[in-house]
């Protein structure tokens, strides 16, 4: 798979794009040089001071002041955003709610000035999300230009999940919201026995959520990616055949899975022809044993209904590539 490096341009040189080279006289150059020298002295002193405070574990207003001065001119200095976050985490634990609210509101204003310098700075946006997540009273409407205001004394994961639900309902084509959902669900409703790491009843509800998205706009890719993840197909292969086998010819392979806890085994033969790189086989193992991964009756029924609906939709929209794949 060959990719030209242009993808990296986007990632970390945004501040360097589009800076016009301007010719100046030697006097102008000298004046500029003096100015930059002065700026540099302050900048370096600030950086040293910030690193020193962080090393000493000092989480205070002075740290906010120093990091603020540097980040205002250089919001891509990611390590300082991390330090600033550490200071706020300390503040959250040690100040009263009103103080925290005020400080974080100021932080949002500060972030707005940083975003003017570089509107695509990951550091700034990440920090903004952190602030919104942790404010005693986040003003979502102000933040997202939405009509509804969320009054909370603590912003927690469930609220964040609600927030993504709202975002998805407002606009299904919101890749970020689906992504965050995939991270939040295993945290809010964990179930380690499930391949996706999320409780079964929650997953079944998610099928509904994603189905609504799919039927509203079958061409939107975000929901399809999420659907695939729900099915547990986002995870890698169980195992790879070691690549020390020389040459490509037809081969027969026997795979044995062993349960480490009690040494029970399950074996399955597979055939791979010369032009195949991957093969699937339906296991002969009896259902209900530890080597099968089946869907519950509820999940099967939900998916069967889904398949019916998708088939219907496919008949209405035969050009849609996602639907063709699914059926």
């Amino acid at each position, binding site marked *: 798979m060959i990719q*030209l490096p242009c993808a990296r341009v*986007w990632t970390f040189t945004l501040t360097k794009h589009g800076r016009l080279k301007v010719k100046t006289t030697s006097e102008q150059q000298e004046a500029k040089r003096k100015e930059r020298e002065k*700026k540099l002295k302050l*900048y370096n002193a600030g950086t040293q001071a910030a690193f020193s405070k962080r090393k000493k574990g000092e989480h205070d207003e002075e740290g906010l002041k120093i990091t603020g001065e540097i980040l205002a001119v250089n919001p891509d*200095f990611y*390590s300082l955003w991390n330090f600033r976050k550490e200071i706020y985490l300390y503040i959250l634990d040690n100040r009263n709610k009103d103080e925290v609210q005020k400080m974080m509101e100021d932080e949002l204003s500060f972030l707005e000035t940083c975003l003017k310098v570089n509107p695509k700075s990951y550091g700034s946006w*990440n920090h903004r999300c952190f602030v919104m997540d942790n404010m005693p009273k986040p003003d979502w409407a102000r933040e997202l230009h939405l009509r509804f205001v969320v009054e909370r004394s603590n912003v927690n994961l469930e609220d964040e999940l609600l927030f993504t639900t709202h975002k998805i309902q407002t606009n299904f084509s919101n890749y970020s919201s689906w*992504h965050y959902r995939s*991270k939040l669900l295993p945290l809010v409703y964990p179930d380690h026995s499930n391949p996706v790491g999320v409780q079964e009843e929650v997953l079944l509800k998610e099928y509904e959520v994603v189905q609504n998205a799919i039927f509203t706009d079958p061409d939107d890719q975000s929901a399809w990616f999420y659907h695939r*993840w729900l099915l547990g197909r986002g995870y890698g292969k169980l195992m790879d055949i070691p690549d020390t086998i020389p040459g490509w010819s037809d081969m027969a392979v026997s795979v044995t899975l062993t349960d480490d806890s009690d040494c029970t085994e399950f074996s399955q033969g597979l055939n791979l022809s010369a032009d195949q790189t991957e093969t699937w086989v339906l296991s002969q193992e009896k259902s209900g044993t530890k080597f099968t991964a089946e869907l519950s009756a509820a999940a099967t029924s939900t998916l069967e209904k889904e398949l019916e609906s998708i088939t219907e939709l496919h008949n209405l929209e035969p050009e849609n590539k996602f639907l063709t794949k699914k059926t």
Partner: protein
Amino acid sequence: MIPDNAPKTLLLQKHVDYIAAYGGKKDEYEYSITEYLRMSGIYWGLTVMDLMGHLDKMNKNEVLQFVQQCQHECGGIGASIGHDPHLLYTLSAVQGRLEAIDVDKAVEFVLSCMNFDGGFGCRPGSESHSGQIYCCVGFLAITGQLHHINADLLGWWLCERQLPSGGLNGQYILDKLTKFILACQDDETGGFADRPGDMVDPFHTLFGIAGLSLLGDETIKAVNPVFCLPESVIQRTGIRLDLL
């Protein structure tokens, strides 16, 4: 729009001089303010000097020492000494030199950035992004760890999420591209910019030179487009080009 007075030939020696002098007394402010990406800057500088046949002008021991000092306990590598671990700089360091760092730990860190769609974000928990994916796939290829990737899923992601590159109408496009890249050179200072007339920097200098190499310029060494490293480096390290 390419200005009439833009350079039309490759000014190789000027670029060598530009990179060799970069980080010296000149432009100190610019250099300091970009400390947050120094590891990548080192990779860009080393690679472009190698491609131009002047790697000897760079200080190998200094570089190795620097990289080692930037690796953290978690395996991740920071942009510079004292800077936090970050995915992009972990890749840049690996592209520089594998033996100097704890590869297993670095792999662990990179894999912790894998997401539900098979892609990678820049930190654990961050959304997938094609730039990040390029870095991570490159990293996993270099370290022989491509089996961790679900190739079908990621391939699907890339096809769906990438903007269409548009049709390539053969030689005509390649000629235009060459002209454009050459026009991005600065004939006074050396180096390449992102477009004609803009300020130059080592990043665009690397990709300008690498681009010209891919387009067939024989005064520049062959570059491997998967890793954006000289082909000779890939061969020398015996990296099995693990392709998905």
